């Protein structure tokens, strides 16, 4: 973007005209990418659902594949629609910190559950028959 042009708030019409020249080519290329990503996302969705109907035998495998596809889709959205692939350092730093805390939270919370000694869990008493409270 030409500096002299953008610094002095331009007349709107000349502005957009100039922007067209500066960007037309770039943006047109981007639009193609956006459409491709869109199709990719649809394909991912179809794949996930198809997998559900196929019924893989292994549950962990199903979960892994489904989450893998979701992650790929998420990267497509974040990378291209939110143009993260060409973002500035500051944004990366913020997101990196967030990713660290997010991962720490999820991992430690789930670990915290997993680590409770078996046999003493309060949900061990599952399937308890709840008698109806007759006093109410």
């Amino acid at each position, binding site marked *: 973007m030409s500096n002299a042009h953008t610094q002095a708030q331009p007349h709107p019409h000349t502005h957009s005209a100039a922007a067209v020249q500066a960007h037309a080519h770039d943006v047109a290329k981007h639009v193609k990418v956006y459409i491709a990503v869109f199709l990719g996302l649809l394909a991912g969705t179809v794949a996930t659902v198809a997998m559900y109907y196929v019924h893989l035998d292994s549950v962990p495998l199903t979960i892994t594949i489904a989450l893998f596809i979701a992650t790929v889709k998420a990267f497509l959205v974040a990378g291209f629609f939110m143009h993260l692939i060409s973002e500035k350092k500051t944004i990366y730093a913020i997101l990196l910190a967030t990713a*660290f805390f997010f991962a720490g*939270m999820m991992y430690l*919370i789930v670990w915290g559950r997993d680590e409770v000694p078996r046999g003493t869990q309060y949900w061990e008493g599952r399937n*308890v028959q*709840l008698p109806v409270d007759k006093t109410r």
Partner: protein
Amino acid sequence: MDASTHVAHAHPHVHEAHHEPGFLRKYVFSTDHKMIGMQYGFTALLFLAFGFFLMMLMRWQLAYSGQPIPVIGELLHSLLGDGAIGKDPTTGKLGVMSPDLYNAFGAMHGTIMVFLAIVPLAFAAFGNFVVPLQIGAVDMAFPRVNMVSYQCYFIGGVIMFASFFIPGGAARSGWTSYSPLATLAHPEFINGQTFWIIGMVFLITSSLLGAVNFIATIIQLRAPGMTWMRLPFFVWAEFVTAFLLLLAFPPLEAAAVMQLADNLLGTSFFLPSGMVVAGNPAEVSGGGSPLLWQHLFWFLGHPEVYVLILPGMGIVAEIIANNTRKPIWGYKSLVYSVFAIGFLSFIVWAHHMYLTGMGTKISTFFQTTTMIISIPSVIILTCLFISLWGGSIRFNTAMLFSLAFLPMFGIGGLTGLPLGFNFSDLHLHDTYYVIAHFHYVVAPGTIFALFAGIYFWFPKMTGRLMNEFWGKVHFILSLIFMNLVFQPMFAQGFAGMNRRMWDGGATYATADGVVGLPQSIIGMNVGISHAAWALGLAQIPFIINFFYSIWRGKKASDNPWGATTLDWQTPTPPPHGNFDKPIEVHRGPYEYSVPGHAADFTPQNEPEKHKKH
């Protein structure tokens, strides 16, 4: 400022600075960071006083269990009703606090002090007033968001306050609102806990908006030449604090929504299967987990304690540099330490949960991280101590409070270590030792830092100085009584006295020989309570001094303390837009007593002189 101003004459909004805004725009719906800072400050100080007042009533109950509250007992009865305030069975006098009311006061004291007093005062009030000035910005990056942030805080506060007067009274499940208690404590459908949750949602929203604003401001609006390593330490502290708020609060918001669903919609996110309430099986779908609430709460809760302390450390660093007239020792260590604290504070939270039966491996993990996080805290404290070395110290009130902060925070931090080891925490958890620990960090720690900040920046806010003599009286008395209040609690905690007990441990006395809580330990309650009330009285000189000085104090110059940072290089009080000249930064934040300079301080915006002259 950017070039667009020069050609902007066609846009009417540029001229808005020319006419004075009306009263409402100026004082109520202001978008000026300094006014918003002062709004935060006043509101938070009011809540601080209110939280203190609740505590004084609780201290009566602990010292004179079951006796009617003197003077205001009847007034409380007429405000809160029969359920809350009862009669003394022997004399028939009104004013005996019910256990439920004690629990409500306890829960709300904690909530108000943490979320409505200290955080808004330390992070938002000082942050708003000082940060844009110190980085040489005209305002915050998003002034209107800033206003909304204050309004959310205000609404949250009103909701919390109103909850005292609804049927059933305020929330009474502790400031931590542990489930399932928080879901079962109230028989009413809409109750104090509902208000608590909705109030928290507003406060969380306010914090989030504030945090976004602070970070964006510090990243984007630093004046030319204000590189990262030239930022005053206070700005760094606010920066990290803002990140803690930004990333730690949302999980609590999620948890609050889930608890709200538990309370109103009958879900059981935090309610286990097979739960029995008052002898009857609870009619809930079950399958939830109380542990989950604790995880989500403390995921915020621990970073929150650093939110409470970091701005205080920042304030103290500024004041120490200014009053020792020498640079802070180890500026870089301070910055790296504050970052280390920020990162680590997200992975230590479960040290609040050792006694939940979490399992030994994960306890060990959290014990390890807890020990590691104390290292940067110690580094910060050490740097500040060493900064005193060889300085020609000016002992004004602000400096006295800052100096007292150091050992007080030291006691608080060091007593955290036995809590951080899970084996010693077995004994100390949920006793008065914990109360003493965290109050040492927050009360004589953070609150002293806040007082220091008030005495220090008062002349910039109002153009007048506070009275030094009464300031010193305030300081000495506060220091003495703070310690008289909290020091005995360590002893009580060691002896095994539980926190959150309506009768101050008297139940244990009857079980003497079984759990063995001696009368001497319980008797300390009386002394502590008297010290607490005396501490209240000791604030009177401050309050009078504060209001007197706003209108009658000695006039201050623009830079009365001879300070280097940009906040002191403005007109006083700073106008809308802050600086009357373009600001460019040429040096680090603490250039005091630089050899070869005439003055003993060199402001950050003073250009380098040409070597030739």
